[in-house]
């Protein structure tokens, strides 16, 4: 309970309520489900999952977990993309969604790292050996060092420095969180010199991180693309496809998160249709580019392709994975059409943009699954029988637990730290 001397902070900071506690409780239950499932996997081994060795075991050693590694890392693309749009192109009206984009990035990267650990039979051994023996020429090393360390540290640094001004403002008011805000502000006083310094830091961080980010996500594509012995992964579009899909799913998630925050925190006056229309237009371009990539992939996969490649493409178009493939493509096409119609009419409304964001987010998961699994079950160059992979309840539970953990982290973070700049709100008053 807040005492009378405490000031009510903006954006419901530090406040609870029945709805909030129910939400946290629900998410904790889902996290617990994931922990229980992972405990079972830890105790009994990967045999409780649907993952099996290639070839004679007729399975896929990379399944749902790896699909979600790719997905989470892809979603993380959005933080610096929005920061770059603001910092380099002066799109200041996107500022209200910049912090949630950065927080989404940090949480997604953490979930990506946890998904890698979930996929490893011996996670601790994996971490130790990575630091001891990783080879720089391996795409896995590049993904780990640039995505999970470089990009994570850069995002945390950006989030921290970006929040200092708000922390300093909030530290002025008496509240239970005052000590926390003072610690975060670390003496920030918003002098012109400090503002100037922060602008410079932001500019150079964006310039340093954007190329690293593109390389990092491309490297993730190379994890698949540079493997020999599997059809379907070797296309030249693998790396650029990963980058564009990262943008698609990142923007999709951001739209959904921004809409949720707007509804839950009553931010209709701050997160307006203007921001959503911008995100929608960026998403439109990215979805169009990705649909083009899919068409090119399918055409080259069925027209004079080597029979191994053609086999994977057939599995996607009319075989075991056809339902997921067409569902994924359908969601992308519907999103594209919704966004295109709005763009052509120059009249925007919220629900088609939010629906498109939700659809491309789901399509992103489906496409990652289709990238990871079919090449293992249907694309082996050695004369193995067709493989099979079906995730078990353990894998589904771990993934649901991870998603709930991410949502919980965002909910709790934005309960103690402002979801957008406080200063602007004060200036408006």
């Amino acid at each position: 309970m807040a005492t009378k001397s405490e000031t009510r902070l903006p954006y419901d900071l530090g406040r609870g309520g029945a709805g909030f506690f129910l939400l946290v409780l629900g998410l904790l239950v889902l996290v617990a489900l994931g922990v229980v499932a992972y405990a079972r996997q830890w105790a009994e081994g990967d045999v409780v999952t649907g993952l099996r060795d290639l070839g004679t075991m007729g399975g896929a050693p990379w399944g749902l977990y790896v699909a979600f590694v790719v997905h989470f890392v892809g979603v993380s693309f959005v933080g610096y993309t929005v920061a770059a749009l603001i910092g380099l192109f002066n799109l200041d009206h996107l500022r209200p969604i910049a912090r949630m984009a950065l927080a989404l990035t940090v949480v997604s990267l953490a979930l990506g790292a946890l998904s890698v650990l979930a996929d490893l039979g011996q996670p601790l051994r994996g971490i130790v050996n990575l630091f001891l023996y990783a080879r720089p020429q391996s795409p896995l090393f590049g993904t780990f060092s640039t995505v999970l360390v470089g990009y994570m540290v850069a995002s945390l640094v950006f989030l921290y420095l970006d929040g200092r001004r708000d922390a300093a403002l909030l530290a002025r008011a008496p509240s239970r969180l005052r000590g926390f805000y003072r610690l975060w502000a670390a003496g920030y006083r918003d002098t012109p010199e400090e503002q100037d310094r922060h602008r410079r830091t932001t500019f150079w961080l964006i310039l340093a991180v954007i190329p690293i980010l593109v390389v990092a996500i491309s490297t993730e594509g190379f994890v698949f693309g540079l493997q020999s012995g599997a059809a379907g992964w070797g296309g030249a579009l693998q790396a650029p496809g990963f980058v564009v899909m990262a943008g698609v799913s990142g923007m999709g998630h951001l739209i959904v998160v921004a809409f949720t925050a707007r509804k839950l925190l009553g931010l209709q006056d701050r997160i307006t249709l203007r921001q959503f229309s911008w995100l929608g237009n960026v998403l439109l371009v990215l979805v169009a580019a990705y649909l083009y990539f899919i068409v090119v992939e399918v055409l080259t996969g069925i027209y004079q392709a080597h029979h191994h490649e053609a086999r994977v493409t057939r599995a996607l178009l009319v075989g075991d994975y056809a339902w997921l493939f067409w569902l994924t493509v359908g969601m992308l096409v519907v999103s594209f059409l919704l966004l295109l119609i709005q763009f052509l009419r120059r009249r925007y409304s919220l629900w088609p943009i939010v629906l498109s964001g939700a659809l491309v987010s789901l399509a992103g998961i489906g496409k990652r699954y289709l990238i990871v699994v079919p090449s293992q079950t249907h694309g082996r160059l050695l004369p193995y029988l067709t493989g099979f992979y079906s995730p078990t309840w353990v894998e589904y539970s771990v993934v649901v637990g991870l998603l709930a953990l991410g949502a919980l982290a965002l909910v709790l973070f934005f309960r103690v730290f402002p979801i957008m700049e406080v200063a602007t709100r004060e200036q408006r008053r």
Partner: protein
Amino acid sequence: MRRALFLLTLLTGLILAFLGFFLAAPVGPTSGPQISSPRVQFAPGIFVIGVALMFASAVVYELVPNGRGDSRSSGKGRP
């Protein structure tokens, strides 16, 4: 002092990243254990620490005051 500390952190990170990269397993075909093992134990870890330090130098750049008179003891100052 601020610039010096910032440059020190940045350069240390850069050097560690380069060292880590070149002391890890040599680039080339994996023809044997001497090729696939790192030249120095924990070299990939050194690389990772270097990368992290490079980005952390931004914090040094913003947090460390310019000179003696520039106090940063609390968030009480009026923005």
